[in-house]
């Protein structure tokens, strides 16, 4: 065991601001020197549906969540008991997830019904009158009696009470709250601090501690000051740092946050953020911006990417230096699960576009790789004159983690080969056949030449031709850039091996699973005696030789990913011929927890079959079926029809 950790969850209706509360607590904990990992889950809905935010607090670098909850702060009934009011309920409530010895902060009137569901499980119930706290704080601020209009402040009370129960000092919480309210808003900030303080004091007074607690604060050196950030911010900052000049987008979860983040900073940083009418336009405008001489990017999710194969092919065919396409995967197929997690677009990213086209596909695995891979992507786009896809996902985009500030000393801008006007005009061919396959590029507006470009097959000058010899040569000129990429990019950027290269068990994965896998291995096999982890970071061109060499050394390979068809496993087989022993996967719309990976590892150890399906903290299949769904309907019958969350209608409606 590398250390101990504490798992906290707050749940409430979407739009009630649980994220604000959770992130204040997270930042306070980080400032106290803890390592913090946050994860939010919410419906595709604006107001009312159930959402929850988990924090895991540890004295080691924590990178994933646990399924068990040590302290649950519930702001509504659904958080506790699920949505049994639905004809087909979706969940049983989080009461069932609270560990024995853990606690629940809840409204006093819920206590009885929760007890009923808990049966004889030993969980500490901490009833707390949120609205009373809010009311008190508002009264102090001269706004008494408006508590129902400030339901959003229930969060603040809950976060205060949580801090109290955890036993951390209150000051950092107050500080973080206040840092969000500058100038005139100070008074609102103070009201919030008061509200949190009432919660804090109430909890300290009324409830004894829990069996679980955040472990003692690790003595971080002062140079170890950490930042707390989310994946989309890491990507956005990398774009700014890399000199991105035009970012295009069409709103879509979970990609929008990044563009909105950039939009907020566009005035200061000379970055054009263009909201287009759709994703066809977004990718095409980005391709042309790249041709126009800037570093260009676009960000989207699956449904938007489904409209981009055309633009990708155009970029590749015309050898545009980009764009960098950030594909934030979410639950598919089709509109699917818009706000949920999945890694289901690997194959699509690899093969989007008719014909054979050069492209690169990268998949960062954690917050700092989000930064560095995004930065590198622009260099690759310029250097190899092709589109670069970054496979991100909902989990990476929205996870909130503490880590050291980025080291930017090693970052270098490489704009690739450019046309040198000294060469004169007559000779300049935009698509000149060269040894490397890369033709120096000119930039429209540049004096000393002009050039032509077409999405049709073309000759060296850029004019249409259907000549056979030219076709063969031009096609391989384009495609052989992939070999150049393979040769030039250092292995450390292609893959990461954690542990020995001859461990008998190898966990193979890509993208955002990294955190849960590393945490699980630290628990399952802390010294990597038997188990190593191989993360593929460059998915195309695929580092086949090295991967094959590593896989062949392992007696057992587990391939872990969040999708139905185990796409990496199929890719590995395609590229190396090797079939992994266990396809460990999950496709329920939620990221892997540490617990799940451990469960998967254990199942494999105990001789599970080729397919290991994980969900809700455990192995649930290869087959999960109707019975389980019907069990939920039964539960509904048992506990009666519950009240759906209240949605008051405007006057004049009958519903």
């Amino acid at each position: 065991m590398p250390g101990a950790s504490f798992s906290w969850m707050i749940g409430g209706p979407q739009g009630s601001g649980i994220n604000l509360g959770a992130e204040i607590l997270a930042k306070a904990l980080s400032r106290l020197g803890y390592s913090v990992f946050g994860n939010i889950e919410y419906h595709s809905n604006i107001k009312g549906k159930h959402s929850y935010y988990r924090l895991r607090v540890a004295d080691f670098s924590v990178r994933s969540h646990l399924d068990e909850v040590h302290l649950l702060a519930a702001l509504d009934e659904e958080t506790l008991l699920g949505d049994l009011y639905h004809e087909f309920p979706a969940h049983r409530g989080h009461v069932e997830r609270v560990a024995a010895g853990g606690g629940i902060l809840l409204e006093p009137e819920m206590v009885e019904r929760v007890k009923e569901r808990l049966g004889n499980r030993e969980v500490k119930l901490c009833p707390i009158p949120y609205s009373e706290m809010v009311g008190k704080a508002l009264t102090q601020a001269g706004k008494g009696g408006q508590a129902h209009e400030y339901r959003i402040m229930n969060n603040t009370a809950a976060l205060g009470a949580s801090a109290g129960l955890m036993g951390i000092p209150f000051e950092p919480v107050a500080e973080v709250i206040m840092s969000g309210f500058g100038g005139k808003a100070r008074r609102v900030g103070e009201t919030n601090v008061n509200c949190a303080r009432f919660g804090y004091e109430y909890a300290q007074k009324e409830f004894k501690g829990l069996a679980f607690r955040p472990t003692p604060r690790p003595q971080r050196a002062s140079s170890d000051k950490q930042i707390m950030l989310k994946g989309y911010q890491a990507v956005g900052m990398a774009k700014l740092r890399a000199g991105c000049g035009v970012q295009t987008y069409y709103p879509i979860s979970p990609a929008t946050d990044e563009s909105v983040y950039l939009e907020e900073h566009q005035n200061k940083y000379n970055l054009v953020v263009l909201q287009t009418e759709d994703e066809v336009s977004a990718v095409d405008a980005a391709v042309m911006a790249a041709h126009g001489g800037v570093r260009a990017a676009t960000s989207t999710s699956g449904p938007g990417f489904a409209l981009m194969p055309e633009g990708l092919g155009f970029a590749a065919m015309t050898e545009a230096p980009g764009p960098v396409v950030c594909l934030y995967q979410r639950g598919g197929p089709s509109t699917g699960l818009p706000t949920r997690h999945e890694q289901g677009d690997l194959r699509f990213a690899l093969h989007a576009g008719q014909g054979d086209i050069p492209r690169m596909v990268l998949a960062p695995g954690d917050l700092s790789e989000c930064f560095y891979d995004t930065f590198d992507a622009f260099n690759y786009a310029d250097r190899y004159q092709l589109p670069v896809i970054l496979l991100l996902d909902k989990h990476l985009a929205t996870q909130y983690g503490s880590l050291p500030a980025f080291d930017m000393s090693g970052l270098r801008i490489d704009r690739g080969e450019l046309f040198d006007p000294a060469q004169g005009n007559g000779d300049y061919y935009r698509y000149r056949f060269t040894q490397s396959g890369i033709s120096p590029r000119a930039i429209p507006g540049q004096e000393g030449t002009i050039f032509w470009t077409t999405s049709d097959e073309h000759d060296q000058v850029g004019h249409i031709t259907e000549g056979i010899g030219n076709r063969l040569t031009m096609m391989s000129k384009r495609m052989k850039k992939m070999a150049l990429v393979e040769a030039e990019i250092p292995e450390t950027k292609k893959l990461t091996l954690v542990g020995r290269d001859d461990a008998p068990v190898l966990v193979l994965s890509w993208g955002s699973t990294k955190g849960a896998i590393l945490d699980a291995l630290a628990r399952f096999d802390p010294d990597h005696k038997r188990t190593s982890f191989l993360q593929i970071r460059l998915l195309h061109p695929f580092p086949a030789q090295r991967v094959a060499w590593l896989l062949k050394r392992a007696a057992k390979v587990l391939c872990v990913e969040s999708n139905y068809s185990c796409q990496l496993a199929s890719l590995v087989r395609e590229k190396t011929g090797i079939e992994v022993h266990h396809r460990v996967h999950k496709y329920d719309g939620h990221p892997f927890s540490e617990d799940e990976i451990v469960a998967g590892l254990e199942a494999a150890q105990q001789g599970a079959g080729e397919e290991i399906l994980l969900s809700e903290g455990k192995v649930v299949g290869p087959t999960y079926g109707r019975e389980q769904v019907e069990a939920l309907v039964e539960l509904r019958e048992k506990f009666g029809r519950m009240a759906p969350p209240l949605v008051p209608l405007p006057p004049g409606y009958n519903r």
Partner: protein
Amino acid sequence: MATVTAPSLTVKDFKSEVHNDWCPGCGDFGIVTALQMALAKLQLAPHQVVVVSGIGCSGKTPHYMHTYGFHTLHGRVMPSVTGLKLANHKLTVIGVGGDGDAYGIGAGHFVNGGRRNLDITYLVFNNDVYALTKGQASPTIKKGMKTKSMSEASIMEALNPVALGLACGYTFVARGYALDVKHLAELIAQGIRHRGSALIDIFQTCPTYNDLHTKTWYEGKDKSQSRLLKLEETDYDPVVHHPSDSGEVSRKKAQALLKSEEDSERLPIGVFFKMEVPTYEEYLRQKGVLSEEPQATLDTIFRRDIQPLLDALA
């Protein structure tokens, strides 16, 4: 519109040497010549001009121009000029493409591109057909009409590009005729000079597929007078004189709509609507997003300091 640099350029300076594979007698020859004449008239250096096309017969235009040339994708002229112009707002960017390209597959971009009012010029080669795919009906073919290439007459309402352009916010809306090269060249020059998005829909003859709207038909050789009427030879005033007066704007739009649909005996060509308001780039300049120097050559963006952003996260 880029600034004038190289003096005394002639039409020849804008011609490329590529073999042209349009059909004999195609109206597109007229348009490309007119474009070259307009550029010569404006004395723009070839390297400052970018011609951006979609796919279709019309899509081949950039290859015949001696300027920077992008032959992009079917329907994507507007997104393409948008990306390019934002990368480098000093370029003179001219979009060209077919009626199918602009009003069919490209309609969504056409609508929302117009609203943006970037300083670009868009020439639509309107021949009533999808020519390069062998003459299917395009969105501008009139209901009940059937060219020799169609197996049956159209049963859909035609789009009126002028009305559509107005509804979409283009600040300069004009119509030209491919085979009146001098008149068209003048229109194109006006469109380029106009600060904002200029739409020029061009009646283009396609002798191969469109046997209805031929040179003979347009020029009225089958009867006593031309079927075309030049607006500037009438007392029609296309200009919005007070763009802040929303009433005047609407009236001028309504006037243009009526004029463009007027009794089809004589089809008006010329400028239907013109209004000077700030361009998209100008707004971006105001906000500080764009500098005087175009993004493409702005070195400072590679030296951005993101430390303040990191500090905010601690």
